């Protein structure tokens, strides 16, 4: 990784920070949403791209963080002022704790079975959200009483955007540190050759489990932000399609690159939310993007420069 990449990332972030407030009111919301999903997508990249664990159930942690935030805000009025900064770590903790519990079942599996078991766990959370009426409001969901205010008004979309951008940068930095640490490198080792890692004496189960828990924590964080972005939480937030979308974001952007997941998040959010305002056949585009990405862009969007380089050198 050359020195150009962090500079490029920083440049993009600065450009985003500076130009977004001038975009229309709707694009501001979309960009904020893309950033929220970028957080959870990057955490899935940690699991998938670096550890090799394809999870089809990350929406569960999003849901846990979101519902916790909504319940605290609407039922106890908690988290609407400075206490927001208490809800954030609570959300992270809830996501991580849920992952810690689910991980006990899931980490024993790998490959296809891991896919299936995470799918099932995600469906369990959906089922609870849908049926546990007294806690989650059932299919009605929970409405939040506005956005928090602590000196600054998060009700202003631009202010909220900056807050989310800040969390995104922190998440990116944190995950970057994890990935470059010895722990992160062992994860890659596990992805490549788990047997060898075990022979070398690594507790691969523990490594995978920790990665799973970390991803759950970030999912919880994304959930807290999502709850405030939308102003409501419903079982729709934790359906299978959400988990699948997050997976697509990672693969589309390029797994194992972190930044790719963020780019993927931007593309998928754009397709779902922006394209749908322009044309009625946007679902075809979405499905097409899924299929074409898988077929022709195995390295995702981030892999394009590499492919261009290889193609160029091959044709010389």
């Amino acid at each position: 990784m050359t020195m150009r990449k962090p500079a490029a990332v920083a440049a993009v972030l600065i450009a985003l920070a500076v130009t977004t407030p001038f975009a229309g009111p709707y694009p501001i919301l979309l960009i904020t949403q893309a950033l929220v999903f970028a957080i959870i997508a990057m955490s899935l990249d940690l699991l998938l791209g670096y550890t090799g664990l394809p999870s089809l159930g990350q929406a569960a942690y999003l849901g846990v963080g979101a519902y916790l935030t909504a319940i605290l805000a609407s039922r106890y009025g908690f988290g609407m002022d400075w206490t927001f900064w208490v809800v954030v770590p609570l959300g992270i903790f809830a996501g991580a704790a849920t992952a810690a519990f689910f991980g006990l079942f899931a980490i024993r599996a790998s490959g296809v079975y891991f896919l299936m078991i995470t799918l099932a766990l995600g469906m369990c959370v959906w089922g609870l959200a849908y049926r546990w009426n007294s806690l989650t409001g059932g299919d009605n969901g929970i409405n939040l009483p506005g956005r928090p205010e602590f000196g600054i008004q998060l009700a202003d979309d631009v202010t909220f955007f900056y807050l989310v951008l800040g969390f995104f940068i922190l998440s990116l930095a944190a995950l970057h540190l994890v990935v470059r640490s010895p722990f992160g490198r062992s994860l890659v080792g596990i992805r490549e050759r788990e047997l060898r890692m075990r022979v070398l004496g690594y507790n691969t189960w523990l490594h995978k489990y920790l990665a799973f828990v970390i991803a759950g924590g970030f999912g919880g964080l994304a959930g807290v932000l999502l709850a405030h972005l939308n102003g409501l939480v419903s079982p729709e937030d934790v359906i299978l399609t959400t988990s699948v979308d997050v997976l697509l974001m990672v693969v589309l952007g390029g797994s194992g690159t972190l930044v790719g997941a963020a780019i993927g998040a931007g593309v998928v959010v754009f397709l779902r939310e922006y394209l749908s305002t322009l044309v009625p056949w946007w679902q075809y585009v979405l499905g097409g993007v899924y299929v074409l990405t898988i077929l022709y862009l195995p390295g995702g969007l981030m892999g394009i420069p590499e492919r261009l380089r290889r193609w160029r050198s091959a044709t010389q």
Partner: protein
Amino acid sequence: MLKRRMTLMGLAVGMAATPAAAQELRIGFLAPTTGIFAQVGKDMVSGFQLWLDESGGNFGGAKVTFIVEDTEGKPPIAVRKAEKLVRQDKVHIFIGGLLAPTGYALAPVSTRLKTVYIASVPAADDLTQRDIAKYPYTVRTGWTSSQPSHPFGEWACEQGYKRVVTIGADFAFGHEVVGGFQKAFEGCGGRIIQKLWPPLGTKDFGPYIPQIKQNADAIFTLMAGPMSLQFPKQLAAAGNRKPVIAGGTSYDEFVLPSMGDEVIGHVSALQYSAAIDTPANAGFVKKYREKFGKVPSYYSETNYTSAQMIHEVMEKTRGKWPGAAQFVKLISAVKVDAVRGPVRLDEMRNPVQNIYIKKVEKRKMFGYEKDELWNTVIKTYPNVGQFWKFKKQEFLKQPVYSRDYPPCKFCE
């Protein structure tokens, strides 16, 4: 076709007395046009569009710009599209939403953005009851879930039913429809002896049908969506002989064409039936059917009537947008002769209207050649408000109808 940005010029159709200053009225419409509710969404748009076309896109001199946004049936998306409609497209009014959660999601948006929201379909009781103070810019032109159930309960008593089993889809709408029926029915001497709640989306009613108590006089059901189609079939196949009465959506014209003879004789209650035998409705049904190829359901009618009510207000203001607060005041005072009958709004901005007790019959109507299934009106209760004969203050003191409210005192 679905995404419309229609700027209909008033010049097209000879408008005699329109003022020269062409005002603009921008209306945003929120409906699911993709996803599993896509057909309902299309019907909603079609209903509104029909009135627009009939009036040449001109409401009292204001040129109507009609923008449709897809909610995909998901409340968060509805919220975002509503924000787009108000902030970016600068609509004066946004209307629509299908599900109760969407109504609950859009009403706060109207308060926050100080823009008029017309809930033409969402029937969640509390939107215009216990929560009304939170939503000063929200107006409902459709119905509350329990509104038809109240007179229906009385009707059930009149039929001599004493013991009824309820089986309703287990979600808020189902709870409210059944709850309203229970309150009214038990209030005139009836007893609900059993309440069954299949989850929303149940396809196989195998677990539930055998549980229905044999000593009931009648079965009251509330089904929504595909459940409405399958439940009567499975009920009939299980050998049911008891009379079946139901909430309005169970036999609404959205599903009725796909139903078979097993539903003949089933009775339900709603503020609309395509078989209302008035010239106004006959004209509406014929026009709608010719244009869109199907008999209109209440989803279409309620949006058609909403357009009519907006038009009424704009006639009064001679096409000038009166501002959100004033618009709400004006529409609250409007009385229209709608296709469903006379409609006006009560002091909580919910319609007061006829409730029709309708029975499924196979017959010819409106000059159509074939025998088809129609919801023939067998009794009309006029001037039904959301509180029926109950005292408003007492009604509001009780909790909103839920799975456990009213409690099942006579359950065996």
